[in-house]
């Protein structure tokens, strides 16, 4: 059972890590619009490919 002393603090650290990843996602607009980007592939886009 000594392993609990490692695993439980580890789980706490993990929660904070995942929280940080999620924070990055939110602040980069990953969750701003959950509908449109999925449909974007269906839009006509006649502009030439390449750097915009």
């Amino acid at each position, binding site marked *: *059972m000594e392993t*609990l*002393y490692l695993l*439980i*603090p580890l*789980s*706490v650290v993990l*929660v904070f890590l*995942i*929280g940080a990843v*999620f*924070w990055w996602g*939110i*602040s980069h607009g990953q*969750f*701003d619009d959950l509908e449109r980007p999925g449909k974007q592939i269906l*839009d*006509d886009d*006649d502009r030439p490919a390449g750097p*915009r």
Partner: protein
Amino acid sequence: MSGTSSPASASLPNPIEIGAGSRADPRCDLCGLPLPLGVDIRVPYVGKTLRYCCHGCLALAQLRPQSIGAQDAAGETPPAIADPWATFDDPARQQGWVVHANAHRAEVALVVAGVHCAACVATIKSRIRALDGVHDIDVQLPGDRARLAWDPARQRLGAILEAIAKLGYRAAPVDALAAAATRKQEARRALFRLFVAGFAMMQVMMYAIPAYVTDDGIAAEHAVLLRWASLVLSLPVVLYSALPFFAGAWRDLRNGRPGMDVPVALGIGTAFAASAWATWVGHGEVYFDSVTMFVFFLLASRYFELRARQSASGAAEALARQQPEIAVRLVNEGAEHGARAQTVPVAALRVGDCVVVKPGEVVPVDGRVVRGHATLSESLLTGEAAPVARSEGAPVLAGSTLYAAEPGGRLLVAVEATGEETRLGEMVRLLDRALLDKPRLALIADRVAVWFAGGLLLLAALTAVVWSLIDPSRIIAVTVAVLVVSCPCALSLATPSALAAATGVLARRGLLVLRGRALETLARATHLVFDKTGTLTSGKIALQRVVALRDTPVQRCTEIAAALEAGTQHPAGQAIRRAAMPAVAADNVVRTPGLGVDGWVAGRRYRLGQPAFAAELHGKPAPSSFAEVRSDHTLVALADTEGWVALFVLADSLRPGARELVSDLQSLGIEVLLLSGDRPGTAHYWAAQLGIDTVEGGASPLRKREAIQDLQRKGAVVVMVGDGANDTAALGVAHASIAVGGGARLAQQGADMVWLGDDLGHLDWAIHKARQAMRIIRQNLWWAFGYNMTAIPLAVTGLIGPWIAGLGMSMSSLLVVLNALRLLRDRGETHQASRTVASPVPRDELAGNNT
């Protein structure tokens, strides 16, 4: 402005960076106000970066030659202003959002951040209305909008805004762009708060389970470890996720008006503090799982509410959101090669500018097509899905989506109106106002909600005292349970959400509800009264035949009639005008609504209109040819002082969906009536076509009004559907009124609702929706009543612990919010398809009649 000199089709570097990061306490470089959180507008200027609090400031700054308008000219930075609120009194700044009704009344639409509950609304209303020179302030609960009317001669706008700020709310004039940026930031923050609470909750639950499942408890040293881990994970939940509750509670306390945030914050705070203390000293109960779960579910219901509010619930929000924030302006559009394109905020556009719209984009302004032709969807504005074609010189409306444009796949639009001046802006403004005008049920809910929180706090205090006598060890558990168990959400949250959702769904289909109360009336309607002209029929009547009754040639008769009808909005008049070129002019024209026109053409007095009206001029009996006219045709007679001159025969067609509407309404148990100003024969013809039993033709506006009042005396709830122009009297007395065919003057029609679309078939769907909305509000209120009546006594007697209380409260609020959001579901698509198929039938029959 650092516009580039590339052609418009190339992509443009955006001179305005809108980013997310912000430093500590930055201030706007124009007005000196602190930058609102989440708003980040920067413009590079002579080696440094200027920042503005809103796009209004940015637009103003660009207009000033010494500021960033001319980037390479070395100018001075605008001087800092001593009193930041004074900038709102600057007439130049007020222009565009302050509407002056007269010298003693000005109105402004505000965004008030931080309004959560009915108590907030009550606070702002009572404090601000008490200020000298304030006529009125109306605050709308979902949407954070407020409308302020004040006397500019007696009070400064800046002082009023400062007073609102002192109450703890942030008020600023509505600026679509800044509001959008704030909304986005708000949604992001809410999502992260929810995530932190949710993830921490899962983990804390995991730590709590061992203690629940083992019979003889877990080893003491492991229990301590789990408690400390729970404490570490609960900290961010309480300190970050629950921050809005604490902030709200603090503000409520300072204002001396407890809202629902106070008991919630008190519950969270007490439970957490007690648990942390127990962890520190090593004995006692811990409630970390209850705290995190409570915060998570409460945030979840608030998040749903926020999402719904932002996505579709507020019709005004949905419309406003449709307005693009950035437009591409063309400078020197005359020269093909010298033309430069600039990306500018829509707020900076001026009348006469030329903007470029590409397919798939939304038109940012009201204007006219400069060149070529285009196909656009105006579904947002009219609810009609079919695209419309617009060629050179034709008007285009802000909010319509461009499908295709020729030549070159670009549409050039000359700006005629921007922002609130556009038709879309007008719709948004009217809808904003509508939400402030609440149905009776919502008013009751508001009143109860204000007292609810205060009563609950008293009850919690009482419970604590009583339990200190019964069992002091359970004081904290029971008091926390009482604080968190009650759920006034149906009052403070779900009722406004339901109303907003219903208005939003209706607006998307083309029915603008301009007075919130109308929704309730629509749901209770027993009689629907139609005015024939322009409501049941398409209103696109055309001149079928002209019968000259004297030696005057037909051509001349039509010219005289067209001159008399010049400038009329009446469909019959417009049809006559379309048939002739205006060769002569009429003087002394007097219009009698519902009857006709009287006027002088070429030195002779004429009357044009209903035969009875025209006959008053000469008193001769109607010639036999009048009786030969088919009853489905409208008859307009032209007469002078000597006798009859000519007879105009006009024919109309049914509106699509009119017939189905009548039968659907009748199956709903609503009696349909037709009160028409047309000849009885015409009215009866259309009534027979539609299956309407109660018909009255030849009704004057006064007669219509009397007929409606008669019905009302018998206890009927009358909804009047008219075209707004000559039915004002009747529209006014009906319980609710719907103006069909919005036309150009939405606001002046005085109707409670405006039907923008063409297909009347949606009207019975609208009644269904209104009934559903009222049903859902009633359900929520009953649920709230039943739940609180059961749960509060259970909590007071100590029968349920804090975690069940928290779960019950959160689930109850989720339930009412989700129940309200059912209104957003729009299952009318198949319904609409059946209309489209069915509509040609009456048209074909009509064509048969005309031949």
